């Protein structure tokens, strides 16, 4: 018996390996068996390996996708940077247009409420030497500009035309030491002279009688007696009022209403001989007080 088994050992083993599972399949082919201990062991062995492999694949895929995404992000970022630059440029242009619109609207308001033929001009240069303190405008004698004409903005006076060419003119600013403007205190109608102090300094208010009522913060407007500026235009605000114990005049400074270092658009008034107001009340009645519109 044993000899027979030994002789056909391989046949028996192989037949068993073949027929046992086949029998199981025939018996339970349609109903999968529940996992036994060995099945669970095999699955317990493979599960960590599957997780580890999955983690590796996930890492590689995530790295690759991240790289691809980064490439896309880089291109998108470049496109957005370009778009952002274009938009910023448009915003700057719109801001400039808005500011210009505000300036021109102010000038237009002035032109509509004042008589005469104003010439709108644009600042195209500043005297690089600094003496005199002057700016150059893009209007000249061809446009009807005359030497001595007043230059203003909607915020106040700027200066006086001192030189005219065909297409340009130079304007001495009221802050130049050679500039002397006839002014008056709006509140009291006391007359004085505003003289430039040069550089970025305030104007010097001269020839205010010591007995006149002058307070800090008083509005200083043009008097219209110098034949350059019409009366009632804003010059600035009085500060540092000093009433001396002796002498005829008190001293003060005037902060210019117009920042002459930031001018862009101005109006050139035609050269006429303005009549000085007979009295304070007359001037006030005509202009309704100084225009204190700011930018």
């Amino acid at each position, binding site marked *: 018996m044993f000899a027979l088994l030994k002789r056909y*050992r*391989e*046949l028996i*083993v*192989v037949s068993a*390996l*073949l027929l046992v*599972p*086949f*029998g*199981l*399949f*025939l018996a*339970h*082919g*349609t*109903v*999968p*068996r529940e*996992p036994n201990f060995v*099945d669970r062991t*095999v*699955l317990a*062995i*493979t599960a960590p*390996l*599957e997780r580890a*492999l*999955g983690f590796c*694949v996930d890492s590689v*895929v995530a790295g690759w996708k991240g790289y691809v995404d980064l490439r896309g992000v880089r291109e998108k970022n470049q496109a957005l940077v370009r778009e952002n630059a274009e938009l910023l440029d448009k915003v700057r242009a719109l801001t400039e247009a808005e500011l210009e619109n505000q300036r021109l609207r102010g000038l237009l308001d002035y032109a509509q409420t004042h008589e005469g033929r104003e010439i709108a001009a644009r600042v195209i240069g500043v005297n690089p030497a600094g003496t005199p303190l002057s700016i150059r405008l893009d209007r000249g004698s061809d446009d009807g500009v005359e030497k001595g004409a007043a230059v203003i903005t909607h915020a106040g006076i700027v200066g006086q035309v001192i030189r005219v060419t065909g297409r340009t003119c130079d304007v001495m600013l009221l802050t130049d030491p050679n500039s002397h403007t006839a002014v008056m205190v709006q509140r009291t109608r006391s007359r004085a002279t505003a003289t430039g102090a040069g550089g970025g300094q305030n104007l010097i208010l001269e020839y205010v009688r010591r007995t006149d009522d002058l307070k800090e913060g008083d509005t200083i407007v043009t008097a219209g007696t110098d034949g350059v500026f019409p009366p009632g235009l804003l010059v600035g605000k009085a500060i540092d009022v000093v009433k001396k114990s002796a002498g005829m005049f008190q001293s003060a400074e005037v902060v210019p209403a117009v920042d002459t270092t930031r001018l862009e658009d101005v109006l050139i008034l035609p050269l006429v001989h303005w009549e000085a107001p007979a009295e304070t009340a007359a001037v006030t009645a005509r202009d309704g007080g100084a225009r204190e519109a700011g930018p």
Partner: protein
Amino acid sequence: MKWIATVGLALLLLTVESVAVKYLGFSVTRIDVTVTIIAFLALRAAVVQGAVCSFLMGYLLDVMSGRPTGLYVFLAVLVFLLGRFANNFVDVGGRASFAVFAMGLDALHMLLALSFTWMASRDAGAIGFSIGGLVLQVCLTGLASVLLFPLLKKVVPEGSERTSEIGLLR
């Protein structure tokens, strides 16, 4: 101990395949790495050793399939024996011939699996057979055979009695 390494390799490859299927989405086909190893066993291993290894690999495939019915165990041993028988009529030496040999066994394995599944369930829709899927699976198994051939030469045990004997068992 090489047969343990062979079974371990089968387990590793099955695990890799399960991960690959998960990520590559082989909804129609798969790579039959166990058949590749069984084909190599049919060429090199002794009959009992090869049958036991095939039985174990079939068992692993059965367990990994999620629906253990014993079919893959039976088919693994059967394919091993058929491959061993076919080896008597063909000369398989290099990678290419091994790949063709494995592809043939894989096609046979798949058709047998489909046939037995159909016989058991009598439900044609349950087996989900498609010629395209069969061809693709066979091709992928052939590719895997080419790639695994050097590794299998080192791992799979070689039977001393497998020289020039003719027959299924001897």
